[in-house]
């Protein structure tokens, strides 16, 4: 890194925050996908600490975005609560599977799914 001064570090904080916030608000997701590698590559954070710190960052941003979506009536509780019920059960299963499956391969499989879904959404 060419700059290692305080100012440079704070500039990076600001840029990471704005990028993560805009993505999270605009897409309803993805803030963590931006914040984690940004902290690892730009701020030399350890990978697992970056994941944990990303939650601290994304949670308040999500609450702010939810406020805007709610006040503009872009919330469907019927879909939301069903997804949440599935999500809580799934989250527990996923945490259990984490130590049993190689996540490296899974990442690639889900990457392919994401690309296929993306193509379907674009066209």
């Amino acid at each position, binding site marked *: 890194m060419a700059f*290692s001064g305080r100012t440079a570090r704070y500039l990076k*904080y*600001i840029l990471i*925050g704005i*990028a*993560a*916030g*805009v*993505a999270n*608000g*605009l*897409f*309803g*997701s993805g803030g963590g*996908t931006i914040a984690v590698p940004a902290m690892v590559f730009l*701020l*030399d954070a350890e990978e*697992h600490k970056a*994941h944990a*710190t990303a*939650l601290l*960052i994304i*949670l*308040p*941003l*999500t609450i*702010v*975005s939810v406020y805007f*979506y709610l006040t*503009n009536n*872009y*919330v*469907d509780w019927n*879909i939301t609560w*069903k*997804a*949440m019920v*599935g*999500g809580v*059960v*799934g989250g*527990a299963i*996923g*945490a259990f*599977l*984490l130590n049993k499956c190689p*996540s490296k391969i*899974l*990442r*690639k499989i*889900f*990457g*392919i799914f*994401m*690309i296929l*879904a*993306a193509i*379907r*959404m*674009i066209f």
Partner: protein
Amino acid sequence: MTVILIGLAAGIISGMGIGGGAILIPALVIFVKPEQHIAQSVNLLFFIPTAIVALVIHIKNKNVNFRMGIPIVISGLVGAVLGSKLALSMNGTALKCIFGVFLLLMGLYEIFGKGRKKKVNNV
């Protein structure tokens, strides 16, 4: 039932640390066909309870870096307001298309992105 199953799948994936929103939003849009803004708000709301639980655990395990996180949160809030307002000013079809591009990039990152190699010396 479809929504619960999608939530379950997204929960499993986020429990394994792969980012459930990248699955939840496109799966909803493709199979349940809500308006894009609605799908995004489902994911935002879905994230809140899970993130609170995970964050408490991470703070207890001292994996959250507050010195790094707090300044990012502050600028992130500005980004979240901008991103949300931008999303709400767009029509659903345009938003869906932009989300698709973002999803494509995330998918490519999942497949080709590599964790950072350990630095020999921290300059």
